[in-house]
């Protein structure tokens, strides 16, 4: 686990979260705040030549992601990335999570809600928010 959460001066997004070995284990409260706004995502699956992966963001009122489960909880956000590829997205106005909710993340090899299988290759995730 090698998460990074930095405060930066860029007004587009003051928080940068980076996980260099993302997997199917839920990482709770990635922005360390309620009602975060997601502005940019980089899903780096370039080192994984065998699998398509799916970044899934969840939200609930628990900072520890209590009662949230990968594979059964409905994600707020899903982004696919083919093997040996990088997907980047930018949302100028941001996607805002519900006011009392925290954001949590996981990466699996299954589309949609179901699936708890972690990628076998290395997957890195960078989230920029505020």
């Amino acid at each position, binding site marked *: 686990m090698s998460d990074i959460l930095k405060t930066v001066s860029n007004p587009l997004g003051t928080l940068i979260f980076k996980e260099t070995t993302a997997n199917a284990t839920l990482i709770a409260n990635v922005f360390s705040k309620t009602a975060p706004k997601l502005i940019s995502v980089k899903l780096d699956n370039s080192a994984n030549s065998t699998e398509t992966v799916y970044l899934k963001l969840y939200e609930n009122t628990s900072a520890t992601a209590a009662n949230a489960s990968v594979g059964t909880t*409905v994600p*707020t*956000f899903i*982004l*696919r990335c083919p093997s040996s590829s990088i997907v980047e*997205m930018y949302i100028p106005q941001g996607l805002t999570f519900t006011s009392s909710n925290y954001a949590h993340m996981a990466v699996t090899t299954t589309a949609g809600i179901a699936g708890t299988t972690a990628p076998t290759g290395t997957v890195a995730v960078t989230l920029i928010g505020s």
Partner: protein
Amino acid sequence: MATTTLDNSYTTYKVVVEDDLGSAALQNITNGSATVYSIFVDNTANTNDVSVLKMYDNLVDGGIDVDATEVDYQFSINAASRRLISFPTGLTITNGLSLRCVQSGALANTGDPSSNVIVTVVYG
């Protein structure tokens, strides 16, 4: 539901504008593989309801089934808001892009948003 398509007769990219993606799915709008550059979702008409944009890169026989086909991409757009989702380096679609807006992200949810959701997709 009315779909307007600007093909690449005049430009190197294509545009699809759907004025009510909350009433039915758009099936395989890219007609196969493509690169998506941006998606604009206008949910301003739904003053109280989130709209969930579901996107599929999957050619299911008979078209995607919104309460049975697992999504490849899913974005929640807050009530009374509009959002541009851009992919600066492109989003690769392998099979064909299908889209639908519903009231929640649950697989079984087929609820139409109360009012029209306008979605614009730019791809090439």
